[in-house]
């Protein structure tokens, strides 16, 4: 928390969680896609589904997917912008289960190269968000920091490999989470960092034995 989270943010209303947070989810998804989104299926859950219409959650999430900031006055007319820029969208509902945050959404996105991406995200209050899942795998990060998500086999040494690489590149870890499905099963580590991780280091991780998937979320571009 800092003073500008108390007095601020500057945003288009009416709701920090249902409007600004929804826009932020769109923005982070756009960055994760790292190419222009041409098709978006947006499935709402819980309070997003119940009150999203009146809060402009639909328009805000489309605005975010097109890279508009949370204080961009064009948010209310984002559907027109989407049509102009060739972004197809449809809205629906989904049951994400009772453990899901009440303000949750699932996005099924297609990029201009045909790349598919499936994301579950939640707006957790005050415009803050969590990306909960990427392509069905646990992610759990805020989008406020450069974030490294490593899915690997649950065996000794992978945390050390990742953290020593970060040390070598002078990247400081802001937060770190570890999960596993079962002993020796699949595991995931989510590291939010204070600096960007060099692209070649992310690639290096991808080639390590026992590492199944590496996703990197950069704040750049």
């Amino acid at each position, binding site marked *: 928390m800092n003073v500008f989270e108390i007095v601020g943010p500057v945003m288009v209303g009416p709701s*920090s969680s249902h409007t600004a947070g929804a826009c932020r989810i769109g923005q982070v998804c756009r960055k994760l896609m790292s190419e222009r989104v041409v098709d978006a299926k947006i499935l709402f859950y819980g309070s997003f589904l119940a009150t999203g219409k009146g809060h402009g959650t639909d328009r805000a999430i489309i605005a975010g997917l097109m890279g508009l900031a949370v204080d961009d006055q064009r948010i209310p007319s984002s559907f027109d912008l989407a049509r102009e820029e060739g972004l197809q969208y449809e809205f629906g509902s989904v049951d994400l289960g009772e453990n899901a945050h009440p303000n949750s959404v699932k996005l099924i996105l297609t990029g201009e190269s045909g790349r598919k991406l499936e994301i579950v995200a939640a707006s957790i209050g005050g415009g803050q968000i969590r990306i909960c899942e990427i392509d069905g795998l646990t992610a759990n990060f805020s989008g406020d920091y450069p974030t490294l998500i490593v899915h690997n086999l649950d065996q000794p040494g992978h945390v050390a490999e990742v953290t020593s690489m970060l040390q070598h590149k002078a990247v400081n870890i802001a937060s770190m989470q570890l999960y596993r499905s079962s002993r020796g099963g699949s595991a995931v580590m989510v590291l939010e960092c204070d600096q960007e991780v060099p692209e070649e280091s992310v690639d290096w991780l991808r080639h390590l034995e026992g590492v199944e998937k590496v996703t990197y979320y950069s704040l750049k571009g």
Partner: protein
Amino acid sequence: MYDSLAAVVKESKKSGAKFWQVIQEDDCREEAIDRQKSFGRMRAMYEAMRDSVNNYDPTLHSASGLVGTDAAKLEKYYNEGKMMADDFVGRVMIRALRVAESNACMKRIVAAPTAGSCGVLPSVLITMQEERKLSDEQMIEALYVAAGIGGVISKRASLSGAEGGCQAEIGSASAMAAGALVSLMGGSAEQIANAAAIALKSLLGLACDPVAGLVEVPCVKRNVIGSVNAVTAADMAMAGIKSRIPPDEVIDAMRSIGHGMSTSIRETGTGGLAATPTGVKIREKVTKW
């Protein structure tokens, strides 16, 4: 970020720094930014607040149709010289409605502390600046005071209606605005803390029961009471009146009241005004996709 108003007051007494300086100093250290940069960012917040007051569009309605045009009605009434409240309070009321209605109509506002309570701080600050011919710098300093109070509330209790009910949103905004007003009146750190406590005490227990779950009814008009309540609390504190319950304990009471509230009156749109026959009818009409 400080977790008690007593600690801010103590630091202010010890170092001789003003309340706003204690807050700014602490935030700059925590966020590793220099004071000038921080002040510039806060200036942008104040300018956005001013814009949110000025950019009111009296023809707009919210998506649900429940909200819009009320600030214009109040302004007309004020201009006809009919208002019972004095001139200062009248202008505060109009501005609170302007900003809160703009929010519901998807215009740009400053969440302070939340979007639902965005009318409170701008309404009292802009009117105070106009009334007393204060500089922008003084207003920006007052915003640090507001942020410091909101920060303590967020640490000890909550700023979210879903967690603490409306007392956590309008109540907190009112406490922040009361402290900011006292700082502009030249009050001490202790008086600032007392004004915040008096403002918050008066709104303890306020339910978050928005019709159809939207930030419209009763949220828009509650911004008016949050603003006017801030003015009365600040005047009491400036007169030397103290909160008999220490400010931090008032905030703790807000937390425990919030925890005791049924979820039906914590932003779920299922209890209170939302559950009235009229509220239910409106819900059925406006929540269809």
